[in-house]
């Protein structure tokens, strides 16, 4: 436990500087990821999950910008690094996989070239060495006949195969941290399960820290050690998988759990969270979830700070764990 966490994010604020003014996409995001840990980052579309990922690997597209806060990789600050230094980290130390496997691979370049380029971004390799390593990497993610697949174009592979290739590319340099941005959302459930198991196995074997971004609590429930729940650019709850799923403290987390269809509720009406997430330009004062919260009181109008409840953190003035107790 003496080694610093792989990733420490502290008070990260990211904004979009638009002509209409500054739109704050992330507010005071703080979390750590340790070696071998799998962190689930859960929230609705627009809650800032992907922005968090891009803030970490320095690929926010303008006008997005990290305004303040600290991001440390193995204790080393990376927010002020030059673009060239960030490039050295990307792929080598921090890797990222995207949602749509149809779109993550370049449609007009062969797999071999895309893997070769990713390899040579951080290593000097001959053509033959690059090919050998690519084949080994494809084998590892369970792609049959990797030598043939290597000479294929992306459109000749199925969605699941493509995502395996993307995972293989992301893990080429055995990065310390992998950010998976909804990598299974666009896939069939059976394929989704395979990819989940694959990524979990590879990260466990290598001690890779993993951030799994998803809007689907059910997806991360099976693999994550810890879960962060994001809402409108803020973390509203942070806890281990068991405590968070068994006894959610934030009403929003409760709502997310209830929104997952289960066998027990069969026939009964699926519970849902009323209303929708506010636009980032129109964040309510005080607790951001207040307008949709059935537990809201006058106290919720005050700004909410992260509160510590035993081993977890929650941004709510009357957490459910206290109400029920």
């Amino acid at each position, binding site marked *: 436990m003496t080694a610093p966490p792989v990733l420490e994010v502290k008070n990260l604020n990211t904004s979009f500087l638009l002509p209409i003014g500054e739109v704050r996409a992330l507010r005071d995001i703080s979390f750590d990821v340790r070696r071998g840990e799998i962190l689930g980052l859960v929230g609705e579309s627009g809650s800032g999950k992907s922005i968090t990922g891009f803030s970490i690997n320095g690929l926010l597209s303008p006008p997005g910008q990290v305004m303040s806060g600290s991001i440390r990789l193995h204790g080393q600050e990376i927010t002020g690094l030059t673009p060239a230094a960030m490039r050295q980290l990307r*792929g080598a130390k921090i*890797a990222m996989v*995207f949602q749509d496997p149809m779109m993550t691979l370049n*449609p007009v370049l062969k797999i071999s070239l895309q893997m070769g380029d990713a390899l040579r971004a951080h290593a000097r390799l001959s053509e033959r060495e690059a090919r050998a390593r690519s084949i080994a990497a494809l084998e590892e993610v369970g792609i049959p006949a990797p030598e043939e697949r290597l000479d294929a174009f992306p459109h000749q592979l199925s969605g699941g195969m493509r995502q395996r290739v993307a995972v293989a590319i992301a893990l080429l340099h055995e990065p310390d941290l992998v950010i998976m941005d909804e990598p299974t959302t666009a896939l069939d459930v059976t394929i989704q399960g395979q990819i989940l198991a694959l990524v979990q196995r590879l990260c466990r074997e290598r001690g890779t820290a993993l951030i799994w971004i998803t809007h689907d609590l059910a997806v991360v429930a099976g693999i994550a050690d810890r879960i962060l729940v994001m809402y409108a650019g803020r973390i509203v709850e942070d806890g281990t998988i068991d405590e968070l799923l068994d006894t959610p403290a934030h009403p929003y987390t409760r709502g997310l759990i209830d929104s997952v269809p289960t066998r027990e509720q069969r026939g009964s009406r699926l519970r849902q969270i009323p209303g929708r997430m506010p636009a980032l330009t129109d964040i309510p004062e005080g607790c951001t979830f207040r307008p949709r919260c059935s537990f809201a009181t006058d106290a919720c109008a005050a700004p909410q700070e992260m509160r510590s409840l035993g081993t977890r953190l929650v941004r709510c003035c009357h957490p459910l764990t206290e109400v029920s107790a």
Partner: protein
Amino acid sequence: MTEFIVKRLLQALLVLAVMTVLVFFGVNVIGNPVYIFASSECDQPCLDAIIKDLGLDRPIWEQYWVFIGNLLQGDLGNSFTHGVPAMSLIWQRLPATLELAFCALVIALTVGLPLGVAAGLRPTHWTSRVIMGFSMIAFSVPIFWIGLIMIIVFSVSLGWMPAVGRGDTVDILGVDLSLFTLDGLHHLAMPAFTLSLIMMAMVIRLTRAGMREVLFSDYIKFARANGIRERRILTLHVMRNILIPIVTVLGMEFGGVIAFAVVVESIFSWPGVGKMLIDAIAVLDRPLIVAYLIFVVIMFVTLNLITDIIYSLLDPRVRLGGNSS
């Protein structure tokens, strides 16, 4: 592939057949060449003799029949004015035009691509506005005007550039070319630049539009997330995608450039086929006009075929002939 090419050739024959009808009868509608050839002292018997000599006394459908018969034997008739086979005149003049058009294409790409990339990378920067303004002007100002202004400025006022002719030529494989002598290049510069302007404007616009689209695609983000160098991403990963529409448009445009080099060749007295066509029209040299137009049709069909083939090489998703392998 073979099936595709055969189909294409059959289509081309059909186009050609329709074309001969239109061209042959169309040319017969405008003016009577006999009055141009006959001297003022030529009386009616003399005129009749000329008409009979040229075969113009026979009914037009019979003339057409003779024309088609000769065409099938590869004979497009003799030029009225030069008295030699029309095709031999075209072959003799064609290298000059091809040389001009080829240089224009090279200029359009070497200048247009980098400018388009620059404009696409920083779309709001003032340089981008200057580039787009330039492309707008190049696109909309008539090229004969630009050609004349260049002659006035660089040839007449400054005396830097020759205004007419091809300059020194060297014989390369039996073809006279200006491209390989200093004097020839000197003569070639202004007409080639003038002819390149429209293509250049098009390349700039297509490149910029492509950049704006491709730069924000997931696969480019993924390439960056893997730490691939920006230069490599631009020159290969982005460029390969952008080239697809550019090749398509330029392939079609290039035929037009050769066919309509007429204007530039007239202004700079460039002895190419365009200049020859203008001269032929002035004296109603029917066989030469018809031969040229048929030649242009064949050239267009061939260029389109070549474009399709290059296109399929650039974009692996396109398989000529419809059925994928």
